[in-house]
């Protein structure tokens, strides 16, 4: 159960090596020791995350999860829920890819779409069914401002995030009467492995700053948040710019 001040007793991370998600897990495990399930492909990074949490006294299990292998997702979720309910599930997997390759290379484009959109929808449906049974819980979907107004410079990635963002907002409406909250988080530029080497955009943040936004949003049962919060106003303005002006903005 999630308590009055937003402490969950169990966490599931889909994309268990995501830096933002792990920053969220660290915040939740700083004072309390909730049960954590990390679903990710087997990798040294996953092992390191498990080791770090175990050392901190957090009961943690790892489950093999491949976002593209949608057929396996029901089994993955069965394993993730095997030790009892899940209070907070983070949908934190995604790939950025090479933006120019992504719209010209068939395989690259399909990979982005499958991981970021199809995979997200696939686990979303499975999580919804399970949290509905519980009558409570929060699904945190890590979206992106890139999906809010899609730019020429990374429109394939942006389009996948636009799709998953719309799906989770809609899922939140559908699950509202069932006691389940869906929190869509739209970070701007976050300094992580995924953006390493890219030029930081204005209002950039760190994984831990995004994690703070997530923790507050879960406690306050918010359904849509930006990280940092002022991006909400910026994006609102950008959304309404005419295309002719928008395309002239510096990338």
């Amino acid at each position, binding site marked *: *159960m999630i308590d009055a*001040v937003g402490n969950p*007793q169990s966490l599931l991370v889909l994309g268990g090596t995501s830096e933002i998600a792990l920053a969220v897990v660290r915040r939740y495990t700083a*004072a309390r020791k909730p049960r954590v399930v990390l679903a990710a492909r087997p990798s040294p990074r996953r092992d390191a995350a498990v080791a770090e949490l175990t050392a901190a006294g957090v009961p943690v299990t790892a489950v093999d999860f491949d976002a593209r292998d949608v057929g396996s997702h029901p089994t993955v979720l069965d394993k993730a829920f095997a030790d009892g309910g899940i209070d907070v599930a983070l949908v934190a997997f995604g790939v950025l890819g090479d933006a120019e390759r992504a719209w010209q290379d068939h395989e690259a484009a399909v990979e982005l779409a499958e991981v970021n959109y199809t995979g997200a929808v696939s686990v979303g449906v499975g999580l919804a069914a399970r949290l509905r*049974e519980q009558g409570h819980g929060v699904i945190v979907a890590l979206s992106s401002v890139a999906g809010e107004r899609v730019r020429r410079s990374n429109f394939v990635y942006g389009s996948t995030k636009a799709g998953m963002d719309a799906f989770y907002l809609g899922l939140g409406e559908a699950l509202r009467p069932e006691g389940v909250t869906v929190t869509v988080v739209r970070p701007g530029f976050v300094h992580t492995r995924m953006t390493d080497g890219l030029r930081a955009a204005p209002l950039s943040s760190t994984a831990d700053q995004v994690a703070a936004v997530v923790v*507050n949003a879960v*406690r*306050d049962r918010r359904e849509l948040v930006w990280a940092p919060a002022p991006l909400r106003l910026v994006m609102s303005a950008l959304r309404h710019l005419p295309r002719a002006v928008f395309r002239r903005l510096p990338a």
Partner: protein
Amino acid sequence: MLVRLSGWGRTAPTVARLVSPRDYQAAANIVKESRERGVIARGLGRSYGDPAQNAGGVVLDMTRFDRIRRIAVDDRLVDVEAGVSLDALMRALLPHGLWPPVLPGTRQVTVGGAIAADVHGKGHHVVGSFGDHVRSLDLLTADGSVRTLTPDGAGSALFWATVGGMGLTGVVLRATLRVVPVETSYFVVDTERVDNLDDLLARQSADDDRYAESVSWFDVTATGPRLGRGVLTRANHATLRDLPRKLRRDPLAFDAPRLLTVPDVLPSGLLNRATGRAFSELWYRKSPTRYGQVQNITRFLHPLDVIGEWNRGYGPRGFLQYQFVVPFAAVDVVRRVVERIASSGHVSALNVLKRFGPGNRAPLSFPMPGWTLCVDLPVRPGLGELCDELDELVLGAGGRHYLAKESRTTADAVRRGYPRFEEWRAVRASVDPDGVFASDMSRRLKL
């Protein structure tokens, strides 16, 4: 019907199937047919946290069982169904010159809930808690049968596990309560305005015994030497002779106006440092020292009952009540908690301090000899950490939390605070081995 339920603090809402059984048989059937996520009874929803909600399971709405079956005036006993509110009970008793001996801070609680939380009132130092006045109760248990339990003899272990058991031993269907005679429905109240916490503690320690009811409000927004300044209100039931001529014509009158109902539109954050300070100042100023004033029930016992749904004033994020008791020897912890809250930036306007008398035989009953302190805190960032800190102070001093208010502590804290927890657990396991009775609280605190 799927319904979103929360406690009075409006935190952590979850969805359950809410069922209103027509009769005991229907209630028994629901219990027998319960599935994995179980059943819990719910009364008027005045617990602050999550004991009367059950995410994904069934919640039994008990408010239909609202019959007062018999008032035995000469024996001073009343036989009621569990869904009867203390408000309704008091209205029915007063014309007979009778009075429920234990009234908590609101009358809007059911008899079943009052037993399950073993509630206390301002008179605890004299009369004990609610469970002390239950002569017998009918409990619907997990197997679908109904057992009549009494405080002594066979079944007494289950009786005392049910008192304070947060609804987890079964569903209280009916109870026989001992009530007390009164000449009037009024109180003779002594109000003392006190400059600081030490003085407040000292005065209560000195002569609480002279009063049937005693409680104090204190200010956590004033700092420095005025920290914990407060208002001590203590009273005895008024006799006929105490009343002014005007009131003598109808000495058992019951006046409970509902002045306004708070609409569900207020934002969170209305109670902040500025408004908290203003409220506290006002409350302090409006209560000059006065002795022997005659006050009615609402004014003395239940001032908040005149405002309907006052919890909405805290906005959608809700609030929590932090209530604990520590032994008298640990009075220093009371001071440290008040100082810690005052310096935290969190604001509490409704703060109550009281001395408890002896506890009772129920393993999970909250009261024990010592100081109990209660604060209302709106949910804001950092509140969880603050309460975790307070937990350490309280548990370290041999204190514990009141489960009827509890909404955020740990399973471990309950076990530390209630040394007889495992004894209670064993009784619960014997009568409900499969955990049919379950609530969000029982899952959260592994009860």
